[in-house]
């Protein structure tokens, strides 16, 4: 008994976390986010690698990634670029293929997702052996910064309707700051068909359907400082379509 507990804690100690950073025109943000990830992961004594998936950004993001790799080493910073912009969903799949960790962290590289939350997610995961831990803007100390009334209204309204229609048992479905067991994420990606950020929603709803366990950590979402932000009507239409699709199939 005692020795098996030791084995488990040893395993946990040596778990490796693969952090996926898909980038498109993030030359200003990439060095900062990597610096922060390294700071917080090292402070918590965690084993990790950062996989940068750049889709041929015209702003020189890849050259910056090479500079950072030279500074921090090839085992810490793994570069898996693609030649052209092919979307987020396939960027994740591409990154997972090359990951060597047993856990995957997915986050945006635009500084909306603060790396200080990664150790908290890991702690929560360990505590309850969750399959997934997801960041949430909608409960506890979670929240947003830099959103106007319109964006808050759309966000809260969409979340309310989704909660009623799908009863997902998770407070933040469209957020993309999450920690997954690698095999669970692979399984979920196989069974999901959506693109864009409906993908995030489908993954988490499918996870519930397949009885995976999900924990939540409140996060503060700070709107991107550098680069452009967009929430147009095409995003809204995409969301409604995705919601109806899940409503009819899940």
């Amino acid at each position: 008994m005692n020795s098996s507990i030791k084995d488990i804690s040893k395993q946990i100690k040596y778990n490796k976390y693969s952090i996926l950073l898909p980038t498109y025109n993030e030359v200003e943000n990439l060095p900062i986010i990597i610096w922060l990830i390294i700071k917080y992961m090292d402070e918590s004594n965690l084993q990790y690698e950062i996989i940068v998936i750049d889709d041929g950004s015209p702003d020189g993001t890849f050259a910056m990634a090479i500079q950072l790799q030279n500074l921090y080493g090839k085992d810490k910073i793994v570069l898996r670029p693609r030649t052209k912009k092919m979307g987020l969903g396939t960027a994740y799949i591409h990154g997972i293929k090359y990951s060597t960790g047993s856990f995957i962290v997915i986050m945006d590289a635009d500084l909306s997702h603060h790396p200080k939350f990664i150790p908290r997610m890991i702690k929560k995961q360990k505590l309850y052996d969750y399959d997934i831990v997801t960041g949430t803007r909608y409960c506890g100390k979670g929240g947003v910064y830099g959103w106007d009334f319109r964006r808050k209204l759309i966000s809260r309204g969409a979340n309310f309707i989704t909660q009623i229609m799908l009863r997902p048992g998770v407070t933040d479905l469209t957020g993309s700051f999450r920690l997954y067991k690698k095999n669970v994420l692979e399984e979920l990606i196989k069974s999901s068909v959506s693109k864009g950020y409906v993908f995030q929603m489908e993954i988490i709803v499918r996870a519930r359907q397949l009885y995976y366990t999900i924990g939540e950590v409140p996060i503060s979402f700070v709107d991107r400082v550098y680069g452009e932000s967009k929430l147009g009507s095409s995003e809204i239409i995409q969301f409604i379509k995705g919601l109806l699709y899940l409503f009819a199939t899940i």
Partner: protein
Amino acid sequence: MRMTKLMEWILVGLLVLSSWIAVLIGKPNYANLNWYYKWFPVIFIFLFAVYAVITVLYRVFTFNNCKAAAIELQNQIKEARADLESKGISFKKQL
């Protein structure tokens, strides 16, 4: 096979609707029935809409504003840039 969310909604909707019709038919003197029996679906939808609007607005106005997190980030950006520059990383834009 498990039910989809759509099927669950249809099932519950039909159950509620048929119970309502059963109540209407079951009453012997339809003319004397209280108004809220007759208008039940309309009242239900109206009350739900009110609940939805109030809830969403309440959540919009109480949405946590993470000012401190934004300030912390701004400071860390400066710290990170200074540290990275001292280690030889060259940035595109100067602050």
